[in-house]
């Protein structure tokens, strides 16, 4: 069996690398936990960090406090004011990062994300139509009308891409160009709607277009969580195929992957994931690019690791950005994301390994 000795050490080395990747995952989860604590302390001044963690833990475990004690007040404040937006930041961060990683693998292009392909702008347009004109696809109005509109808006770019690719093969670069054209179109439509609306609606619509977690309430959470959980589980099941796709369409076909069908199914899943976030938070940029890029630099390009670790890193970045947004300046988190996101992205491009990523 001496022949297998080397082979065993390959298996061993391979799994050893897996452990290192898990470390990055654990670090970002710890990062999230730390920011959650800081967030809670800032929500209710009279408690320490450790007390904040104990109160959150107790709440999760179902412990009831004596009414009107410090702990009781702290619990109520944390749970009603900051917890919805923390949970939303965690879920939205994970979802947007997963969608970005998925999009990049699908398009074989490190610059692809829900924004560069027009999906976010489509969702944004749909929701703004509901907000400004009160026009909804279904008869329901208010939040649920917006959700449906966002879904429909997100599906428009997907539909266009699918229609075009049925008539002629679309290279990843061409897909990005189509997406960019669509996203310019939707952006100008949104601008038009904002111009014609009244001041109050303009303020709401504008903040929402920039991306905010201020308006999140508990009732927004279940749908985000369910769609994100189902969507990301689906993506996790497909990481092998996503890796195969990175070899290029022709090679992926010869390894048994029905590339066109796979891409369409994944685009639809991604549109649903994106819309379910965008209709509650507005359009938060950069996360879908920054999180997967950072992760690829740290752990390599194997999607089996890129997808879950990007989700953790995405949660961490968005929670942190929202904490900064709330404590320091009370601006919409989308602004903070852009302010910290663009220099981070710039640095990532400078740091990345030579030869990593072909930019079209």
């Amino acid at each position, binding site marked *: 069996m001496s022949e*297998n000795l*080397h*082979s065993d050490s*390959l*298996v061993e*080395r*391979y799994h050893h*690398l897996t452990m290192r990747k898990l470390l990055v995952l654990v670090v970002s989860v710890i990062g999230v936990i730390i920011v959650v604590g800081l967030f809670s302390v800032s929500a209710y001044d009279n408690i320490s960090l450790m007390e904040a963690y104990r109160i959150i833990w107790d709440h999760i475990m179902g412990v009831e406090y004596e009414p009107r004690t410090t702990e009781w007040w702290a619990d109520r404040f944390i749970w009603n004011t900051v917890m919805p937006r923390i949970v939303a930041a965690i879920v939205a961060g994970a979802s947007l990062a997963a969608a970005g990683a998925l999009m*990049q*693998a699908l398009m*074989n*292009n*490190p610059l692809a994300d829900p924004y560069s392909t027009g999906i976010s702008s489509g969702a944004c347009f749909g929701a703004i139509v509901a907000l400004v004109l009160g026009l909804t696809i279904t008869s329901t109005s208010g939040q649920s009308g917006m959700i449906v509109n966002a879904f429909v808006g997100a599906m428009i770019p997907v539909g266009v891409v699918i229609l075009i690719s049925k008539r002629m093969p679309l290279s990843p670069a061409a897909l990005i160009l189509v997406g960019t054209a669509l996203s310019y179109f939707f952006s100008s439509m949104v601008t038009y709607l904002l111009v014609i609306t009244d001041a109050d609606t303009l303020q709401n619509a504008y903040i929402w277009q920039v991306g905010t977690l201020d308006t999140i309430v508990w009732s927004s959470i279940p749908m985000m969580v369910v769609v994100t959980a189902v969507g990301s589980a689906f993506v996790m099941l497909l990481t*092998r*195929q996503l*890796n*195969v796709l*990175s*070899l*290029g369409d*022709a*090679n992926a*076909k*010869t*390894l*048994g*992957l*029905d590339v066109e069908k796979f891409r369409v199914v994944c685009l639809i899943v991604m549109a649903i994931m994106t819309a379910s976030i965008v209709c509650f938070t507005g359009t938060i940029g950069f996360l879908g690019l920054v999180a997967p890029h950072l992760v*690829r630099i740290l752990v*390599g*390009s*194997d999607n089996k690791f890129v997808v879950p670790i990007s989700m953790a890193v995405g949660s961490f970045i968005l929670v942190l950005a929202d904490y900064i947004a709330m404590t320091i300046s009370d601006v919409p988190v989308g602004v903070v994301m852009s302010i910290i996101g663009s220099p981070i992205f710039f640095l990532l491009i400078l740091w990345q*390994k030579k*030869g*990593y*990523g*072909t930019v079209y």
Partner: protein
Amino acid sequence: MSGSTIRIDIEGVEFGYSANPVLKNINLSVNGPQLLSIIGPNGVGKSTLIHCINKILSPTKGVVYIDGQDVASTTLKELAKKVGYVPYASSDAFPLSVVDTVLMGRHPHSNWKSLDHDLDVVYETLRLINIEHLAMRSFDELSAGQHQKVMLARGLVQEPKVLLLDEPTSNLDIKHQMEVTRIMRDLSQEKGILVIMISHDLNIAAKYSDHMIMLYDGGVYAAGTPEEVLTAENIKTVYGVESDVIMSHGRPHIIMLDPLFDDNIKPLDDDVYVSSDNRVVDRMERDTIVRNVLKEPARGVTD
């Protein structure tokens, strides 16, 4: 290894990119495990033909059968279990490690529990072509030749019955060209697989191939043993190149002739040459003649 044999039948295959036809009525039957080389000039449609076999392209006319089964009605997944493909170049937008890259060749066979077994197959294959030391390197940090060997390994771990190789040795040095081609030839016998290789190195192809196919003007110009295919006339017609074909160790060996060069200058010894009009000339004059022949007048030399 005996048992199931393998055959490919190509019947009346035609293909063109947009309006311009590349393959015109290709008919071909290949039967049994062997190393088969496809040769022909640039742009004749060698890669296109291979893409018609593994369903990257669909022929506009005609049928490709693998073991009697129409490729057009075979799913990509089924086909991937039978037909492996090593492309000329591979995308590396998201480079993985060599192990992960080769591991992808296991995709048609793998399931959730097979990782360790797949890694064993990967390791054995890396060892077979002597690149196990590259296992943990990143795919985008390899030399062109190492790159090519990794892609070959990916095709091999697919454990196909038919292996299609598009110029698999174009970046390899002479030793590794021979080594890789010999391994392909031995594998075809040991594992009973049909290896189809596109090659521009006629001598290497002649040395190791069981059969050869010569493409010309969208069709099969010649097919058969290397000796049958590689005649001076065929090479003249298809490549437009004069040659002497000699036999070496039972295989044809081509000595390429260049009338523009060979006939004008014949080296006599180190510093003395004979020009085409049989004058004895020195090195400097020889160089002038060579430049003139190449239609590139030497600077500073006047006639």
